[in-house]
């Protein structure tokens, strides 16, 4: 007679290391999965491989010099970071940004949101297991917008174009035409990606019902941006805490309902389209005029105060907490990066799913490791 317990094979949980050098981790990120068969029972994310101490370094630089670090945090949505930082300095020094600069900032930020989401849509296809097509579609369109950024700022990645009070220099004369020429291509590109992915069987099977997080949990974990909206929470800083001139445009905030990977994908796709609407309206309204305030101090000196400003970045709330003790340098600069907060919920999203889905879930958070580690 065989004892009952002998029929049960003994199982051991296996620890699997992923990263830090792994294409699916979108940078230098390592996670240690504990798996039981194909199921993930625990995840321990390890970050900090890219920690460059930008917050500490900013304390030794004057307000303008620290702009460069903002590009190097979220390097796929640089303009939004610069915007948040410049807004913080502007609040501190009580600078008034000229209309023209506000419009140019909005146009560039929204185009930047599109490039960032195109990058996501391209890379997400790879995470889900069909290589190539979505990536090339995404990059083809991203490249056109990238060319505009290069034309305007002189750089392809680290723009450092916004300044406290306005912009470093005015845009080229053909800027409006350049953007108008690109918009139809971008629309077509988004349509291509929509046709390729939304009805795609691979995408449907790999994303629907996977990695879902409820609205309440999402708020508790401090998720923001497309992740929060995919869970059905109607929250967008552009609408709910309007900054800059976002209250002058007409656009929608796309919402999901399940908080799963499919909703996150759909929300980003629609958000990119809405951003193009904002760009069009801003181009129509773009006024002439100065790009910097008239009375701009040569040396920026803040009062003894603290400010917190936040923008709706491509990944969520990018906040800058700036403490000044007088003088021309920040006493403390904290960047509230959306990737950092969103990634902290990875464990709760992943536990219980399959190993293969862990890669897709990580991809759906759309992390930028420069932003996570700072």
């Amino acid at each position, binding site marked *: 007679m065989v004892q009952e317990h002998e029929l049960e094979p003994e199982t051991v949980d296996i620890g699997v290391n992923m990263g830090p050098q792994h294409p699916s981790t979108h940078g230098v990120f390592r996670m240690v999965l504990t798996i039981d068969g194909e199921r993930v029972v625990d995840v321990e994310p390890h*970050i*900090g491989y890219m*920690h460059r*101490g930008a*917050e*500490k*370094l900013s304390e*030794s*630089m004057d307000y303008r*010099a620290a702009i460069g670090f903002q590009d190097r945090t979220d390097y796929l949505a640089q303009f939004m970071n610069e915007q948040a930082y410049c807004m913080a300095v502007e*609040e*501190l020094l009580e600078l008034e940004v000229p209309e023209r600069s506000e419009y140019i900032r909005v146009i560039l930020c929204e185009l930047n949101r599109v490039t960032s989401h195109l990058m996501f849509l391209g890379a997400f296809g790879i995470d889900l297991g069909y290589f190539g097509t979505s990536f090339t579609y995404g990059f083809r369109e991203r490249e056109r917008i990238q060319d505009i950024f290069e034309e305007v700022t002189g750089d392809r990645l680290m723009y450092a174009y916004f300044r406290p009070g306005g912009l470093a220099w005015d845009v080229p004369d053909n800027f409006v035409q350049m953007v108008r020429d690109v918009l139809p291509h971008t629309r077509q590109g988004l349509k291509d990606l929509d046709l390729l992915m939304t009805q795609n069987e691979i995408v449907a099977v790999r994303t629907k019902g996977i990695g879902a997080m409820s609205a309440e*949990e999402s*708020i*508790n*974990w*401090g998720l923001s941006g497309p992740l929060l909206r995919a869970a059905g*929470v109607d*929250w967008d800083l552009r609408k*709910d*805490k309007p900054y800059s001139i976002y209250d002058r445009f007409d656009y929608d905030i796309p919402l999901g309902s399940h908080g799963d990977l499919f909703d996150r994908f759909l929300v980003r796709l629609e958000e990119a389209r809405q951003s193009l609407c904002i760009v069009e309206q801003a181009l129509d309204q773009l006024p002439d005029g100065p790009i910097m305030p008239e009375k701009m101090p040569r040396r920026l000196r803040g*009062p003894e*105060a*603290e*400010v*917190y*400003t*936040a923008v709706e970045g491509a990944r969520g*709330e990018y*906040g800058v*907490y700036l*403490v000044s003790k007088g003088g021309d340098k920040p*006493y*403390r600069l*904290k960047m*509230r990066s959306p990737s*950092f*907060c969103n*990634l*902290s*919920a990875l464990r*709760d999203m992943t536990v219980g799913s399959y190993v293969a889905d862990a890669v897709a879930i990580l991809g759906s958070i759309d992390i930028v490791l420069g932003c996570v*580690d700072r």
Partner: protein
Amino acid sequence: MPDEDSEKDAGASAGDQKEEETPAAAEQPEDSKVEQPPAAEQKAEEEEDARPRPPAGGIADLLAAAVAEALPGVKLEAYQGMTDVIVEVERDDILKVMSVAKDDPRLALNFLRCLSGVDQEEDGFEVIYHLMSLEKKHDVVIKTNVARDDAHVASVASVWKAANWHEREARDMFGITFDDHPHLVPLLLPEDMTDHFPLRKDNPLAEIEEWQGDELPEEGFGGSKTR
């Protein structure tokens, strides 16, 4: 904010005005200060803690009412910062106050935007919580102070899970211990780096890291002649 200081000063010097000034009533013309020179002495005394009051009926009043109901005896000090209302809370009360802030339906501060540490040198460390309510669309900053030689505060990870990583980061950078944190191990720094806190002010950057000139100095940095 010099304007608000002088407003307050004008109110105090007028004497016959009421203590509780509404912001609108306090907007006395600047010249009232000029007419009464003795006010200058008074100003010097008050300068120390001249903190503008938060607007009446705002988040500070809501928080004060909710805390007074749920936690009698807990002291709050509220003032208007440049962009937010700032409320200072005693270190030992922080967890209780946070639970009220999140659970009280009038406040419903369900979203922890940001949690930061600040090194205030001889005044110890500050831990700053940026809270927001997605329903009520209001926000508030809560601050607490911990001593340098006794740098610990209760973890709020049980209130908002978002605090989990923020607190680990603050521990990494400032060495503030968050009591009852579920997993307080180094996050951004190496696993074995538990006794060195880079963002403390007594841990300055190297000379070469601060240097912003166009050309490297001939004599090199830190006594070294090598470039």
